[in-house]
């Protein structure tokens, strides 16, 4: 419903300022601002209230709109990112178009960041006045509704991606799961046991992996990478690169006879899945339960690729004729409504802490290497032996390598304390060695975590509180001779200790993937300063991003353990479901449009639009904006040399009046 404007052309304005409990009121004199704005021309109602976003607060606004025939609404409260929608709804409730409203951010941008009440109050007056000036030019607008493509893309086939994909697929959605490696499973597939229950990682993961493979709603693309994302919420066009594995995936049944038949009789090449502790052939499969169970050929090591003169015994051995040396990289396109990013983490490079001797002393291992060593399907079939083939008498586990460290990564990686305990238990169990844990603080906050720590204490694992200064082969006593010595200040005992061991395990922390920046650019989302993907709100929107329709799950957002990862993956899947099941998305009406009779057809705007929303009508010789494609950045509006492009919500009049408003006295 529309109200007639006042005779002088000035709309009737209602102004509301929120105390936000004491959040705003403690730093800003809200009563003073309320009185000041009340005196501005056009302002018919001005009120302050304890919690404007509460039901009574919203009701008060709606009531005022009806009673005082308000035509514009200004609310000074928190960031529009938080409550803009709330007050738009309040406006609508009162019978006003939602876009006759303007929000003033005086909490995040004033109350919380200033220390002087006087100047914070003056600033608030300026900002509120600007909004009052601005709403004069507001127009009645409607949100645009755009249909949503019902399919979902999940990127990353670790436990997070697997769980998200299965959840969505079980809800009846078509899902494409894209994984960079040859198999899904991620880091979890490398683990032997999981803390604190010590259940076998493979036993709980592999059923989910095969469920992914066999699910009618899931298309699984491994050995594939997303290279381009275009479009917008509900309508993403995604280009995926499918790398050649030189095996016809639909023909290979994973019998592995080709591997036996390979001209290399013995595995010779470093096995990435086993962290280089094992060997593989040029034709290989990462591990027996790899999903899909399809072999692949590494062209870097395969004789046929290197010389073209191999006997190709593998081809002979495959009666399904699945081997295809001519396979090429393929580009595939997907149309999806939502995307779940679950791209995981990488472990800290232990060589960045040279005083721990990784890469220098053969007795020093990373935790992930030990995961493979203690794994029954690992390179040593679960036997804990050093690179020299000897069984360690004593093992030292150093916590916080690449975590909680000013020089490397400041954050706590959250999982290392717990996995160190797990590894301590497994090493002791598998080898009978004395195990020492060197920790700064023990962090075991989780269901049954602290109890697990207690269990380890009872098992006789040693705990030394102190950050290890160095790992050295410098022996001072015969006992230390030929071993690795950990020098550490035992901060509980209060002196420096030298502890000789035969094997050192570095509990490396979790870091963003090496290409996290490129990935986030591709998907147009943000990263925190440490490089993990940025959630929309740390508490209230932990799986959303600032780009609608793109959700994040698992360790790509921050280090987290398996239970948290699975919970987050479920949450991301649920958010994607909400989007898709609603059938459409509402887009802000902040689109731009060309006023045809004003346009000179100079084409200045045409190349500026990143979404090719602007075209040049060859008949009329004028520019045209396709509203469906326009995302409302306003670049063309600023660039139109004759001022003939307008933008809803951010028109010149609105911005100039805001400038006038902040500067007026």
């Amino acid at each position, binding site marked *: 419903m529309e109200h007639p404007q006042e005779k002088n052309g000035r709309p009737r304005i209602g102004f509301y300022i929120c105390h936000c409990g004491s959040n705003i009121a403690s730093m800003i004199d809200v009563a003073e601002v309320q009185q000041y704005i009340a005196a501005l021309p056009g302002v018919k109602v001005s009120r302050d209230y304890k919690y404007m976003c509460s039901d009574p607060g919203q009701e008060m606004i709606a009531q005022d709109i009806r009673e005082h025939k308000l035509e514009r609404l200004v609310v000074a409260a928190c960031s529009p990112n938080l409550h803009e929608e709330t007050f738009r709804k309040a406006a609508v409730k009162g019978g006003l178009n939602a876009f006759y409203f303007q929000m003033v951010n005086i909490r995040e941008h004033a109350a919380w960041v200033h220390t002087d009440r006087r100047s914070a109050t003056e600033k608030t007056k300026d900002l509120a006045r600007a909004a009052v000036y601005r709403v004069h030019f507001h127009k009645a607008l409607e949100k645009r509704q755009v249909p949503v493509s019902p399919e979902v893309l999940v990127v990353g086939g670790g436990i997070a991606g697997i769980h998200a994909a299965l959840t969505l697929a079980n809800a009846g959605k078509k899902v494409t799961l894209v994984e960079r490696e040859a198999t899904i499973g991620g880091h979890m597939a490398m683990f032997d046991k999981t803390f604190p229950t010590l259940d076998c990682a493979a036993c709980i993961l592999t059923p989910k992996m095969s469920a992914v493979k066999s699910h009618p709603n899931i298309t699984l693309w491994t050995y594939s990478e997303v290279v381009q994302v275009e479009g917008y919420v509900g309508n993403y066009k995604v280009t995926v690169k499918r790398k050649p594995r030189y095996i016809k995936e639909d023909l290979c049944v994973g019998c592995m006879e080709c591997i036996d038949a390979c001209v290399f009789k013995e595995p010779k090449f470093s096995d990435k899945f086993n962290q280089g502790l094992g060997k593989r052939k040029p034709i290989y499969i990462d591990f027996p339960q790899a999903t899909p169970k399809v072999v692949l050929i590494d062209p870097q090591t395969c004789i046929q690729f290197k010389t073209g003169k191999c006997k190709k015994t593998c081809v002979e051995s495959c009666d399904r004729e699945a081997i295809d040396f001519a396979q090429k990289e393929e580009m595939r396109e997907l149309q999806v409504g939502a995307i779940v990013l679950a791209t995981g983490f990488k472990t800290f490079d232990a060589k960045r802490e*040279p*005083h721990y001797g990784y890469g220098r002393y053969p007795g020093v291992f990373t935790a992930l290497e030990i995961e493979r060593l203690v794994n029954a399907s690992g390179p040593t079939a679960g036997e804990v032996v050093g690179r020299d083939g000897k069984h360690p008498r004593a093992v030292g586990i150093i916590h916080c390598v690449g975590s909680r460290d000013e020089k490397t990564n400041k954050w706590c990686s959250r999982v290392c304390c717990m996995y160190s305990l797990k590894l301590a238990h497994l090493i002791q169990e598998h080898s009978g060695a004395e195990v020492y844990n060197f920790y700064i603080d023990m962090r075991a906050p989780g269901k049954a975590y602290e109890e697990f720590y207690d269990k380890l204490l009872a098992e006789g694992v040693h705990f030394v509180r102190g950050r290890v200064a160095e790992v*050295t082969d*410098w022996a*001072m006593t015969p006992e230390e001779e030929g071993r690795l010595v950990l020098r550490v200040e035992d901060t509980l005992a209060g002196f420096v200790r030298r502890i000789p061991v035969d094997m050192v395990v570095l509990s490396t922390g979790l870091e963003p993937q090496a290409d996290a920046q490129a990935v986030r650019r591709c998907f147009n989302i943000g990263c925190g300063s440490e490089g993990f993907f940025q959630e929309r709100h740390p508490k209230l929107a932990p799986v959303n991003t600032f780009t609608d329709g793109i959700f994040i799950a698992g360790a790509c957002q921050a280090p987290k353990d398996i239970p948290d990862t699975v919970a987050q993956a479920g949450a991301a899947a649920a958010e994607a479901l909400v989007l898709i099941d609603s059938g459409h998305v509402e887009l802000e009406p902040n689109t731009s449009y060309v006023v045809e009779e004003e346009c000179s057809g100079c084409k200045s705007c045409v190349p500026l639009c990143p979404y090719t929303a602007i075209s040049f009508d060859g008949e009329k010789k004028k520019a045209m904006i396709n509203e469906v494609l326009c995302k409302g950045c306003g670049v063309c509006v600023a660039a139109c040399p004759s001022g003939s492009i307008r933008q809803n919500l951010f028109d010149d009049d609105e911005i100039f009046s805001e400038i006038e408003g902040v500067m007026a006295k």
Partner: protein
Amino acid sequence: MRYLYFPGCSLKGTGRAYEESLLAVFGALGVELQEIDDWNCCGATAYMSVDETKSYALAGRNLALAEREDLDVIAPCSACYLVLNKTQKGLAEHPELHRKVVKALKAGGLDYKGTVRVRHPLDVLVNDVGLDKIAALIKNPMKGHRFATYYGCQIVRPYATFDDQDDPMTMEKLLKAAGAECVSYPLKTRCCGGSLTGTLPEVGLRLAYILIKEAKKRGAEAIVTVCPLCQFNLDGTQGQIAKKYERVDLPIVYFTQILGLAMGISASELGLTRGIIPAQAVLAGR
């Protein structure tokens, strides 16, 4: 290639062998070192703890003298290198301190804008001159000689400007270019005991003994160092070590001396006769 040269007190006194070998090697490489005219004490150790501002001014004077030329400064002594770098950084980060120091300098007709770079000869040799150029001048490689490289505490801490703080490797690269072998020596940045021999001799001596003993144990025929203070301490305390622990007799030499030998410069030119522990082993085969 031309640099300013800040010798500091050691290189004119106890560390003369360092200066002689440094100048000989740089001369052979065609790198010109121009000694800063009228340099003064760098202000190391005691000054800093007594009066910080004054000691910054003292060191700042050397930087001010250097700034008049548009050249990097080479400070071979670890203490000088550290103090001059600390001053450079301190003045850059603390405008108030910089103002005070400049005021003092102006009283002496000097000024300091903050543009000087203080470099270590290891840095200059590897990063400016380059290993290829050095390798090309090696006439008499140190084949079969094994050394322990010892960096001491000051050139990588707290500022690790050209090498790793925990496991520096620059000296290894140079010695390898000279044809020598380096033993794995995890004690390369541990305290030599130098500053304690005067105050807590028992502790100082023990620290020196540990370093020498470990180097010997690992098959080194000498410890190669970059620091005149470490050299003096490790060389000069071996008599006491013999009395208290055991006879060690390990030559302590400068990396420039080894480089010089490999370049075919004579032992006397390189000051190799100046050590208390004779450098016979090092000279074997020449």
